[in-house]
């Protein structure tokens, strides 16, 4: 709680924390905020631009937000040019009915934060198949944001255990694990990631791919954490209270858990927060080149893969928006990590 107060009193930390909480809140309640299901396509709206939202209709003296229906013409290059059809008005309704989903996976409901009835609203535009990018960003965020947390947590766990054992016992165990660490760290991580992904069959279900990506990312990530925890464990094991615990006949396991690892926790916390971006980017990288989450499931990486061609970006710039979310998230995690480090490092506190 004290840490939380200090984060809030620090401006960059406060902003980062606020944005991240907002993002996580939005993706946890994705079906509530999303007007459509993540795979709800509509060929009539292929690459539809972000829908304009009108607040006031002077002709009809209407003061609630509404949108016009969209129609398109095909120009001489066989491109669709979307236009507003001013004759049809769809008012934006709040807490309206839409597709059915299970709220938090518990009870079924069909309420959504907003909707336009029979019309189509694309807050951030549509993709090739006419799916709502806003919806897909929310659903994709569930994967991208959770992979970061889970992956970082697993590699932290591995790093703590392996680094703790290695540093505490020293000798041969230490030598062996540190050489393995170096081997993992030696290979450029993206190539290692590709190689690991390539060693599994390509046609896996989305859940399998999700788990696989987590495993691959934590396999790459544990090494650097383990090395630093090991260094801390080596200095901590020389503390007199560790000797005292040994003299009391406490088992090695208990000593590591109680008297070594808790002292590394402030470092570990910072390391985790600063490592989460690497996992988010790792997933995005894999999905971008088509080895990660597969369509129709969304992740921020595979949403961006639609923006691989320069023509697409020029004609439909809104398909780059998922990239913006990745950037904002990564920057926020870095800001939060830096703030945490400043708070937890007593030597910096004086500055």
């Amino acid at each position, binding site marked *: 709680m004290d840490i939380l107060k200090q984060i809030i009193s620090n401006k960059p930390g406060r902003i980062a924390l606020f944005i991240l909480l907002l993002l996580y809140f939005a993706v946890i309640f994705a079906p509530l905020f999303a007007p459509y299901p993540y795979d709800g396509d509509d060929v009539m709206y292929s690459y539809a631009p972000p829908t304009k939202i009108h607040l006031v209709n002077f002709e009809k003296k209407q003061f609630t937000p509404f949108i016009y229906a969209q129609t398109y013409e095909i120009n001489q290059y066989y491109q669709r040019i979307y236009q507003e059809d001013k004759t049809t008005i769809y008012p934006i309704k709040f807490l309206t009915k839409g597709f059915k989903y299970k709220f938090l996976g518990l009870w079924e409901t069909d309420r959504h934060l907003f909707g336009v009835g029979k019309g189509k609203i694309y807050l951030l535009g549509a993709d090739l198949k006419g799916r709502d990018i806003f919806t897909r960003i929310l659903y994709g965020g569930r994967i991208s944001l959770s992979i970061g947390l889970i992956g970082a947590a697993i590699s932290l766990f591995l790093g703590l255990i392996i680094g703790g054992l290695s540093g505490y016992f020293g000798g041969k165990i230490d030598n062996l694990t540190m050489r393995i660490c170096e081997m993992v760290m030696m290979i450029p991580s993206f190539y290692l990631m590709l190689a690991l992904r390539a060693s599994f069959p390509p046609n896996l279900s989305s859940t399998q791919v999700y788990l696989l990506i987590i495993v691959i990312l934590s396999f790459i990530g544990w090494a650097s954490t383990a090395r630093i925890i090991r260094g801390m464990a080596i200095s901590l094991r020389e503390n007199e209270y560790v000797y005292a615990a040994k003299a009391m*006949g406490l088992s090695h396991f208990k000593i590591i858990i*109680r008297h070594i690892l808790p002292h590394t926790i402030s470092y570990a916390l910072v390391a985790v927060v600063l490592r989460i971006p690497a996992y988010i980017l790792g997933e995005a990288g894999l999905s971008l080149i088509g080895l990660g989450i597969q369509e129709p499931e969304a992740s921020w990486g595979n949403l961006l893969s639609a923006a691989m061609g320069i023509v697409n970006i020029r004609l439909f710039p809104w398909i780059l928006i998922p990239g913006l979310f990745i950037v904002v998230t990564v920057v926020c995690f870095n800001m939060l990590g830096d703030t945490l480090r400043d708070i937890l490092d007593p030597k910096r506190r004086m500055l």
Partner: protein
Amino acid sequence: MILEVKDLSVAYKSKTKYVDALKNVSLGVEAGEILGIVGESGSGKSTLALSILNLLPFSSKNQGEIIFNSKNIFKAKEKELEALRGNQIGLIFQEPASTFNPVLSIKYQFNEILKSKLKIKSKKNREKIIFDSLEQTRVRDPKRILKSYPHQLSGGQLQRVSIALAIALKPTVLIADEPTSSLDVTIESQIIHLFKELRDKYKLTIIFITHNLDLVKVLCNRVVVLYQGQVREMKTREELFKNPEDSYTRSLLDSFSELEG
């Protein structure tokens, strides 16, 4: 004889070679006595204490035997050692402020030891043992002390608590490695009396390591003089002070009486 050290040699690894810390040390401890081990710093006193519990660092090597209850400690398995440390041989360190984990409360550390060493499940029984042993060591206001963290207590209080922790496991031998060196004189004398009491009450065997001949004079039955890793003299207290044979012992006693004036 409850504990016997036979021909013990310990060497620590330095960067290029091994440096001897103890050379062919042999001594015996009788049940119920207080054996003083005297020597200047670097004479191997603490190394001796650590070897009795087989707690020497990985980078050291050792020869010889330490027999406790007719078992060689150096040959014991890890599990046997865990059962031996604390439960049968307790160790009290020089610096009470650093023998406790600074981030855990005293109560937590007490409970942790009792849970894992004595396997006492019930909270009530544990609390009884904790308060009993704190009373034994004359800790004032035990409730407050238990709630506090190590940095909130004074050296004297902490040393009492660590003695309480050691005797809570009811060991037969207690090794005290310069337990009073970092305390002021009034607290020192109180702690020394405490050791005497414990010996009388529980028939506790105490190995008292010190560089202070004053304490040896009031406390110990027998004295071992260590110098540069070797036993120079092993005698009862009266004889040591009456007719020291070894040259080092004599110079030690001389410098001591010089200070006394």
